[in-house]
C-alpha cells in the first residue's frame, strides 16, 4: 500500500468518526435538577413547585417577614418600641409599591407545564392543581391592584423577542383587574373542593376563593361607591387605570354578597365559639388552627422549620425570653378608645379626667389636672367590648396566669391638691426604685427615662392578640401561631358593608331580603360572638361609621385598616399630618398609683393621657401619621422606554 493511500484512509476514517461519534455529548442529562416531565409526574413534585409559589405571596405583616414588626406599628393601631422604632415611621408614595411579574410568570409557566407535562396525574387532581394556580394568580393580581391600581393582565408566558418594546403592555383598567379576579374565581371555585376529607386552611380551597371574591368585590364596590370622592381628590385617571365608575358599584357589591352567601351555603365555616369567657375566646381564636373553622386561609408556622417571631417581639417585658426583644408592639389609646361600651353600645373614649380631656407630656413631673380616681387599675376599662381585653393587655390584666405589671409611677398628692409624679430613673433601676418603700414603676412599664427605654411598654398597653401562650413560644421564633389571611368574621363584615352600601345606594332588597336587615344580620353575628346578645346593634344604630369602627376593632392588627381607609377614600383625612389631630397624633394612657398616706385616695389609681413620643423620627418625636393623596396609589414602576406606562394620579 502506498503511503498516500494510508493517509487517505486515515483521513476519511477520522472524518467518519467525527460524524458518528459525538452524537449527544453536548446534551447531557442535568443531574442537578429535575426536568419538567419528571417533576410534573408526581404529587410531590407539583406540591414542591406550588410551595414555592405560596411562599412568594406578599404579606407585609407576616410573622417571619415583618422585621421587628415595623409595618404593624406604622399606622394608628400601635407604636413600635424596639430600639429601632424610627423604622416604623411615616412613609411616602413608594410604600407598598408591588409589581411582581416574576411571580405571575412563574404561575403562568406552572399552568402551562401542568397542561403539557402532567399526563400521569388523575383528572380530578389535575383540575385542582390548575384551579389552585389560577387562585394564586388571582391573589397576586388582587395584591397588585390594591396597591398600584390597574396593571396589565398577563395570562401566558412571553418568549424572547429581539425588540423588548414589542412586549410592552398597557395598564388594564382597575375595574378590569377586579373583573378578571371574580371571573377566575367563578370559573375555578368548584374545582377547588379538595379531594382529601378535611378542608385545608393552608392551600387554596373553595372557601378561600370565595373569601377572596368577597373581599375583592367589596373593595371594587366601595371604590365605585366613592367615585365622586375619588374625583374630588384627583384619584380617577381618564384611562380607567385607577378609579371605578359609579355605575358599577351595585354589581360589584351584589357579587360580594353572592360570595358571602355561597360561603355560608358550604355549611363548613363558623365563628370560633368555644369559651364562655368572651375575651379569652376572642384571643384563642388566633392561636390555634386545628379544629378552628373560622380560619379560611392562613400561612402556617411550626416554630421549628418555619419560625414565627411575633410572640418574641410582642410579649410583655416581664415574660420575655430573649434579650433585646419583647414589648415592641404597643397598642395606642386611639385603638383602645374604639372599643364600645358593652351595655350601651356607645363609642366613648376612656375617662381619665373630670370634665374636659387633657393631653399631657410624658416628661411632665407635676400636674394640676382633675383626675378621675379609680379603685383598681382595671376599673377604667370595665364594661367595654370583651374584644378589648382579648386584643390588648392593660394595667390589671393577666397573661399566662401572671399579672401584667403596668404602672408608670407613683402620683404623690400634694397639700394643694396637685400631683407630683415619681418614676424610676433608668430601666435597670425599675426593679428596685421605690419611694418611701413603695415600688414606683412596673416591670412592664410604661416607662421613658434615662438613655435606654426600649423593649418595655411605651403607651401603657401591650398586645395580647396573636401572642402565643404556649411554653417556650417567646424564644427563638418557636411560636406556631398561624398568620391569618382570610377568616370567617371578615367575610361576615364584608357582607355587612356590601349590604349597607347597597342600601345607601337605593337598592332596597337583595335576593328578596331587605338590604339593611341583611347588613344587620351579618354584623350582628360578629357582634354576638364578641359580646353576646345585648351587644347586637339595632336598625337605627347601624350607620356606616359603625362599619368603620367594627372593622377597626374586630380586624385590628390583621392588616386591614390601611386598605380600608384607602378604599373609603378617607385615609388622607384621618391621617392628615396635623399636630392638633385627634386621629393622626397617637396617644397612650399611663396608669399611676396614688401615694397619699392617711388620705382616702391612697393606693388608688389615676390615668394620664399622654402624647406618644415614639412616632416619627428621632429628631421629631410625637409626629402625627402622614398619609397624602399620592399614597392612595403607590408608585407605578416606570420601565425605561415603555411609552404605554401611565403614572398614578397625583404622582
Amino acid at each position, binding site marked *: 500500500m502506498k503511503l498516500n493511500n494510508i493517509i487517505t484512509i486515515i483521513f476519511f476514517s477520522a472524518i467518519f468518526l467525527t460524524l458518528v461519534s459525538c452524537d449527544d455529548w453536548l446534551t447531557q442529562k442535568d443531574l442537578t435538577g429535575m426536568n419538567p416531565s419528571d417533576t410534573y409526574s408526581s404529587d410531590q413534585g407539583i406540591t414542591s413547585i406550588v410551595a414555592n409559589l405560596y411562599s412568594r405571596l406578599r404579606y407585609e405583616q407576616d410573622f417571619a417577614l415583618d422585621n421587628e414588626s415595623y409595618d404593624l406599628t406604622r399606622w394608628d393601631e400601635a407604636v413600635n418600641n424596639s430600639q429601632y422604632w424610627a423604622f416604623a415611621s411615616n412613609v411616602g408614595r413608594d410604600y407598598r409599591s408591588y409589581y411582581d411579574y416574576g411571580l405571575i410568570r412563574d404561575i403562568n409557566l406552572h399552568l402551562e407545564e401542568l397542561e403539557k407535562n402532567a399526563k400521569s396525574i388523575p383528572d380530578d387532581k389535575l383540575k385542582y392543581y390548575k384551579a389552585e394556580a389560577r387562585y394564586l394568580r388571582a391573589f397576586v393580581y388582587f395584591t397588585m391592584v390594591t396597591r398600584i391600581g390597574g396593571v396589565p393582565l398577563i395570562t401566558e408566558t412571553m418568549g424572547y423577542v429581539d425588540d423588548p418594546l414589542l412586549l410592552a403592555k398597557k395598564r388594564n383598567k382597575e375595574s378590569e383587574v377586579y373583573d378578571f379576579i371574580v371571573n377566575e374565581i367563578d370559573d375555578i371555585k368548584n374545582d377547588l373542593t379538595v379531594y382529601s376529607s378535611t378542608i385545608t386552611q393552608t392551600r387554596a380551597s373553595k372557601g378561600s376563593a370565595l373569601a377572596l371574591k368577597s373581599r375583592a368585590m367589596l373593595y371594587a364596590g366601595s371604590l365605585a361607591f366613592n367615585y365622586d370622592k375619588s374625583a374630588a381628590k*384627583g384619584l380617577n385617571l381618564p384611562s380607567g387605570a385607577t378609579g371605578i365608575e359609579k355605575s358599577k358599584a351595585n354589581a360589584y357589591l351584589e357579587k360580594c354578597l353572592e360570595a358571602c352567601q355561597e360561603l355560608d351555603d358550604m355549611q363548613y365555616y363558623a365563628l370560633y365559639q368555644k369559651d364562655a369567657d368572651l375575651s379569652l375566646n376572642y384571643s384563642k381564636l388566633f392561636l390555634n388552627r386545628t379544629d378552628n373553622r373560622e380560619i379560611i386561609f392562613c400561612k402556617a408556622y411550626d416554630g421549628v422549620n418555619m419560625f414565627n417571631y411575633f410572640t418574641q417581639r410582642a410579649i410583655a417585658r416581664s415574660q420575655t425570653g430573649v434579650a433585646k426583644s419583647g414589648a415592641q408592639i404597643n397598642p395606642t389609646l386611639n385603638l383602645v378608645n374604639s372599643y364600645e361600651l358593652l351595655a350601651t353600645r356607645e363609642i366613648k373614649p376612656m375617662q381619665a379626667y373630670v370634665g374636659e380631656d387633657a393631653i399631657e*407630656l410624658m416628661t411632665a413631673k407635676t400636674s394640676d389636672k382633675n383626675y378621675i380616681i379609680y379603685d383598681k387599675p382595671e376599673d377604667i376599662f370595665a364594661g367595654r367590648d370583651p374584644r378589648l381585653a382579648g386584643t390588648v393587655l392593660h394595667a390589671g390584666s393577666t397573661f399566662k396566669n401572671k399579672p401584667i405589671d403596668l404602672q408608670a409611677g407613683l402620683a404623690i398628692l400634694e397639700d394643694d391638691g396637685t400631683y407630683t409624679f415619681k418614676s424610676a430613673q433608668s430601666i435597670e433601676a425599675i426593679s428596685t426604685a421605690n419611694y418611701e418603700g413603695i415600688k414606683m414603676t412596673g416591670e412592664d412599664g410604661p416607662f421613658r427615662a434615662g438613655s435606654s427605654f426600649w423593649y418595655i411598654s411605651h403607651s401603657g398597653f401591650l398586645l395580647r392578640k396573636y401572642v402565643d401562650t404556649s411554653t417556650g413560644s417567646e424564644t427563638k421564633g418557636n411560636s406556631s401561631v398561624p398568620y391569618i389571611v382570610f377568616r370567617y368574621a371578615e367575610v361576615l363584615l364584608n357582607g355587612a358593608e356590601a349590604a349597607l352600601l347597597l342600601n345607601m345606594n337605593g337598592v332596597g332588597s337583595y335576593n328578596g331580603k331587605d338590604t339593611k336587615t341583611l347588613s344587620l344580620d351579618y354584623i350582628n353575628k360578629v357582634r354576638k360572638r364578641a359580646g353576646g346578645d345585648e351587644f347586637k346593634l339595632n336598625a337605627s344604630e347601624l350607620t356606616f361609621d359603625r362599619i368603620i369602627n367594627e372593622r377597626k376593632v374586630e380586624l385590628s392588627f390583621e392588616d386591614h385598616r390601611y386598605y380600608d381607609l384607602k378604599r373609603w377614600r378617607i385615609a388622607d383625612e384621618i391621617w392628615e399630618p396635623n399636630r392638633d389631630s385627634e386621629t393622626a397624633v397617637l396617644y397612650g394612657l399611663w396608669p399611676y398609683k396614688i401615694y397619699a398616706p392617711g388620705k382616702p385616695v391612697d393606693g388608688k389609681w389615676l390615668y394620664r393621657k399622654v402624647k406618644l413620643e415614639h412616632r416619627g423620627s428621632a*429628631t421629631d418625636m410625637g409626629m402625627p401619621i402622614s398619609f397624602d393623596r399620592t399614597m392612595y396609589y403607590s408608585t407605578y414602576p416606570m420601565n*425605561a422606554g415603555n411609552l404605554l406606562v401611565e403614572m398614578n394620579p397625583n*404622582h
Partner: protein
Amino acid sequence: MKQINYIVFIVSVMFLISCEYDNYDGPSVKFTGSLITASGDPFFYDGNPGRGLIKVIQKGFGKTDGGTNVRVDERGNYAQLLFPGEYWLTLENNPYPFEVENINSLGAGLGYDSIKIDLKSDLKMDFKVTPYYLLTDFTAKVENNNIVLNCNVTKNPDAPATAPKVTFGRGYVSTTSIVNGGTLLTRTKRAVITDSGSFEVVIPIFGVNSFREIYTNNFKESAYCRVSVELEGIPSYYLFSNITKIENVPLTP
C-alpha cells in the same frame, strides 16, 4: 533598566490621557426667579421643602425619574443650578390654592401644562400668581402666656368664582426666621375661621405643643410668626402671610 523607563513612560502617558471622559462639569446654569402677585408684590409661599411647586423635567430614553424639584422659599423666590439642555417646566401634581399664569391644570390628579425652556445660559423667570384669597391685617402679639395671631381673610376679586371656600386658619411660631410646617423649630396650631372672615390662633408658650417645647432649654425671647389658610379640598398647600418677629416672649409662666 531600560524596560522600567519604558513602563514608567507608558504609565505616565496613561495618567495624562485616561480620565478625560470619566469626569464632567457640575451643573452650572442658574435658573432663578420669583412668584409675584398681580400688583408685582412678592407672593408669600410655604417654604417647606416637602411642599414642592415648580419642577423641571428632561425627556428621553431612560429618563424615568420625576425630574428636578425646584424649592421655592418663604418669600416666593427660587434658585436652581441645572445642566444646560432642554427642559419642560411644570408644576407638581397637586391641587393649589392659587393659579399660576400660563400653567393650567389638566384636570384633578392629572397634572399641569408644561412650558419648554431651552437652558443655554442663566435664566430668570417670574411667575404671576393669583391666590384665591388674600390675607390682610396680620398681627402677632404676646398675651397671657400665649402668642396670639390674628388675620383677616378676603376673597381675591381676581380669583375665579369657583374658588373653594376657606376651611381653617393656621398659626406658626418658630425660633428662627424660617417659619413653616417642615422645620422642627416651628410649632403650629389650627383654628376655625369665623363668618366675618377673620381668625385667631392662640399658641401656648408653655406646656404641650408650646413655644418653649420646641426644644429643651429654649430661652429665646423673640419669636417669628406667620399664618396660613387652608381651602376646602386642597390639603397640604395653604396660602401664607408674611413673617413677623415679636419680642419679649416670657421665659417663665
